[in-house]
């Protein structure tokens, strides 16, 4: 118990680091995932190939390897950024492949007839997309996007091992200060549970409000 109260600021910093990493990487993953999903359903062959390659490669890349390549490799090209930004890039790109697949299958759940009906009413492509297809797709992707983002939050622990300020990394400092390792890990675990349960609660609320009635 003392471990938490005496090192509250240290834990707080690590916790905030994980939250920041999760939020920024989620935004990047959602944006990139959306872009790649739109590539994968595009009527243009070259873009479809790009989207497919992106998803296939990233889904089969060990995240540690990606972190290794991005955090230690990109600086070799003269691109020097804070480690935290690199971590967001690695996590975001990795998760975008999963988000892409979720969004694509969400779009595919919208019956073809919906789009055909919209077009026969004279709606333009943009209106069809904005008023008919995407609202329906959005409803069905809420739960899987939620579980993907929970996985992202858990994966952010890897960033800690690459010296980004983050919850898991706090154990090192505590260990050096001579606190009980077991208890410091218990509080780290509690921190992760708070984050993942919050995301899960958030998506449950969204699902209740907008989800498909089943």
């Amino acid at each position, binding site marked *: 118990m003392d471990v938490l109260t005496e090192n509250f600021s240290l834990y707080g910093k690590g916790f905030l680091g994980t939250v920041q990493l999760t939020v920024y990487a989620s935004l990047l993953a959602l944006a990139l995932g959306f872009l790649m999903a739109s590539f*994968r359903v595009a*009527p*243009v*062959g*070259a*873009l479809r190939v*790009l989207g497919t390659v992106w998803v296939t*490669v990233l*889904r*089969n*890349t*060990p995240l*540690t*390897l990606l972190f*290794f*390549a991005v955090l*230690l*490799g990109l600086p*070799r*090209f*003269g691109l020097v950024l804070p480690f935290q930004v690199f971590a967001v890039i690695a996590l975001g790109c990795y*998760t975008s492949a*999963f988000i892409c*697949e*979720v969004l694509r*299958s969400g*779009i*595919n759940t919208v019956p*073809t*007839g*919906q*789009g*055909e009906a*919209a077009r026969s009413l004279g709606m333009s*492509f943009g209106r*069809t*997309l904005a008023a008919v*297809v995407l609202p329906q797709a959005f409803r069905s992707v809420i739960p*899987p996007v939620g*579980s*993907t983002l*929970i*996985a*992202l939050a*858990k*994966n952010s*622990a*890897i960033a*800690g*091992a690459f010296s980004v300020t983050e919850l*898991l990394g706090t*154990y090192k400092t505590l*260990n050096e200060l001579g606190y009980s*390792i*077991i208890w410091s*890990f218990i509080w*780290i675990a509690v921190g*992760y*549970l708070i984050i*993942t349960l919050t995301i899960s609660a958030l998506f449950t609320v969204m699902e209740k409000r907008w989800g498909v009635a089943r």
Partner: protein
Amino acid sequence: MTKTRTRAPSAPEATALYDIPGPVARRRHRLYGIAATVLIAALLGWIVFLLFDTDQFTAQKWTPFEYKGIQELLLRGLGNTLKAFAYAAVLSLALGAVLAVGRLSEHRVLRWLSTVLVEFFRAMPVLVMIFFIFVALKVQPLPALVAGLTLYNGSVLAEVFRTGINSVDRGQREAAYALGMRKTQVTTFVLAPQAIRAMLPTIISQLVVALKDTSLGYLITYEEFLHAGKLIASNLDYDLPFIPVVMVISPIYIGLCMLLSWFATWVAKRERRNLKTRAAGVGPAEPGTLLPGGQ
């Protein structure tokens, strides 16, 4: 709409997004296609230029891969990765089976205990468990890595097994009980064989996760593939061949995972044609199961 409409062979499945393109739209798409190809080619060209510009293809950086010692180092690393994967795969399948049996048990205590275990280990980041075992329990790197992977993947597999067994058609179970079989007999002779056949693709995709996550061993100084790469990359004698190492390691690593993923897809395709799987309808892997730490 009928299935007879003509479509370019590589076109995606019909979605609600687009109509079947006419000649004008097809011409436009071709233009977009050419523009996109040029852009992608330019991007790739720029990356290759950057590689040359930062001297990644100098002989000094690539010669180490010709040395026998370095090749052996890499092979040993790959062997260690595969060893960790083999242990983790077998043990997590066993743990998954045990936990699934626990969750399906008629004894409340057993059911409750395995539910708590499964939920807890699925909610924790794998790396936190691996670090906990490695740092707090002071275990050697390989057992720590294998234990962490086993706990996580075993819990996920337990859920897969449980849903698989529960999704076997109810009539199968009822018929078996009606023949006078005991619960154990029903599960082992009737439910499990059908369930496993239907779950196989999902199980293999979960093993891909385990294979990918063996790379976490790098973070606890287990001498696996990435660790071998790091050793070569940080060698000053070869002018820190970091990018060459990544260019050698990642195709092998990603290729291994892809091979296993393709195997899962192949099994799934084959199973779909198989009459024996009709009784159990296990859906495709739940979204997110491919992620380490996915639900």
